[in-house]
């Protein structure tokens, strides 16, 4: 398919929207798990804000993804099994401690902001509209997470140690961010989304300078985990979905 001839195919639009929507849904779930467990009340509010923003984005993206075959956001969220989820592995990783949660957030939100910036200027109007709204939210998420990474990186000996462990734990999942699926590559050719290779450099630059500011080192080992975009997940996702979906599935014909 070439640019301008057929536009973005329905299948590619659905795959792109599904991947991004699942990212938001799964990370929102993880953040919501912090409710009543946050280290201070201000953070209780902030984590809920992040979770709410991402849930809103998930709803818009899943609604768009389901349009072609007449499935709504709830059918997509509640009636797919883990092999059909398309989110990044990074986002389904358990919360761990607050250092792990904020590290995951900065790695993802930095990526999401860059991605949305490209998509907001893209050729697919509905994706562009979702991205234009989402980019402002992502900007705030980046700022919030960066501030915590700096505080924890340079706070106390303990917080510094925990940040180092968090980075080691999550770094293996970062390469997957920049691995396009076939649908993504075609959507990028159409100008609907940015090529992932175009945001890898700015992402790396942003993360590296943050780590320098925070007195932390990026692990030397390679980041080799991937498979989430193709439905090959970690063991964690099945449990997350079991919890998220059980009530809805227990009442198949109910509306809520």
């Amino acid at each position, binding site marked *: 398919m070439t640019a301008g001839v057929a536009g973005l195919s329905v299948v590619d639009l659905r795959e792109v929207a599904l991947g991004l929507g699942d990212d938001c*849904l799964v990370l929102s*779930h993880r953040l*919501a*798990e912090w*409710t*009543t*467990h*946050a*280290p*201070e*009340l*201000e*953070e*209780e*509010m902030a984590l*809920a*804000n992040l*979770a*709410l923003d991402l*849930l*809103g984005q*998930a*709803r818009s993206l*899943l609604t768009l993804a389901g349009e072609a075959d007449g499935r709504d*956001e*709830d059918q997509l*969220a*509640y009636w797919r099994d883990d092999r059909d989820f398309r989110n990044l592995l990074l986002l389904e990783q358990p919360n761990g*401690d*607050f250092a792990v949660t904020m590290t995951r957030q900065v790695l993802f939100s930095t990526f999401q902001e860059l991605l949305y910036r490209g998509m907001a200027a893209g050729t697919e109007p509905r994706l562009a509209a979702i991205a234009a709204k989402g980019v402002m939210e992502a900007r705030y998420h980046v700022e919030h997470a960066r501030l915590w990474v*700096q*505080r*924890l990186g*340079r*706070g*106390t000996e*303990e*917080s510094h140690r*925990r940040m180092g462990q968090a980075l080691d734990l999550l770094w293996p999942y970062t390469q997957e961010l920049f691995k396009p699926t076939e649908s993504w590559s075609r959507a990028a050719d159409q100008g609907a989304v940015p090529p992932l290779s175009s945001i890898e450099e700015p992402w790396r630059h942003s993360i590296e300078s943050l780590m320098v500011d925070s007195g932390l080192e990026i692990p030397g080992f390679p980041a080799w985990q991937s498979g989430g975009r193709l439905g090959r997940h970690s063991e964690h996702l099945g449990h997350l979905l079991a*919890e*998220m979906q*059980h*009530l*809805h599935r227990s*009442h198949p*014909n*109910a*509306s*809520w």
Partner: protein
Amino acid sequence: MPPTNSDESRDLAFQEAIDADRTVEPRDWMPERYRSTMVRQIAQHAHSEIIGMQPEGNWITRAPSLRRKAILLAKVQDEAGHGLYLYAAAETLGVGRGELTELLITGRQKYSSIFNYPTLTWADVGAIGWLVDGAAITNQLALTKTSYGPYARAMVRICREESFHQRQGFELLAELSRGTRAQHEMAQDAVNRWWWPALMMFGPPDSESPNTAQSMAWKIKRVSNDDLRQRFVDMTVPQSRALGLDLPDSQLRWNEARGHYDFGPIDWEEFRQVVGGHGACNAQRIAVRRAADEGGAWVREAARAWEVRQQSRTSAA
């Protein structure tokens, strides 16, 4: 208030100001017992907002639609905000949030006993919104005219949000009540379990409420427990009919002569047991709050250390 020398005339002047409906502000002189009563009441209220996040927070990850999940998440977040305003109001009386949290997790201060009941099904989220937030509004509307300024102003702000919560709870139950048979039963079961505890939220009957007289004189409390309870019953009964759900009280009926609904006797022994620490979730609620506080200590410490370093860096520059 004019400064005077003797305690007695200060007390008198304070009472006169209260009688003239002037609000008490943080810098005003106030009797020590007024201050301590106010601190205790605001702190208990703040703790209730924060502990109250737990029973509903229990259902966020399992909410049966994404729309309901967003509403619930936003609601629980509002409650954290209410806790924050109230701790800030307590701070105007010279007690910090950390100190009050310590009193809570060591069991030396209380929170509303309603939150010691478990949320067993999704319908409990609706019942809490409708009945518990409904009872809270009844209480808090009266408190918007309480004599301590910062507390009264916090109540105005909080009441606005609570009325959203109540409406959302009502809508959630309405959807269940007219839904499938299993959904309707779930809603009825939740109302059966939450009705009586909601009535207990207004506290013991006036005849057994020792603090009421002084609190009324100081206008900390503006309406008595029994009067508030009656207002709540009168407001809620017609709403239950609109929902198509029964309230679990065979003695509930309109009394033409009184112009109010009569209702059956409340099991005050249950109330005493739960207040006394023997409810289903007392230990669990405190354990969760304590674990969050202790588990977050290293984060707060790191933030403080970082702050100190930032300040010394800017002052050195």
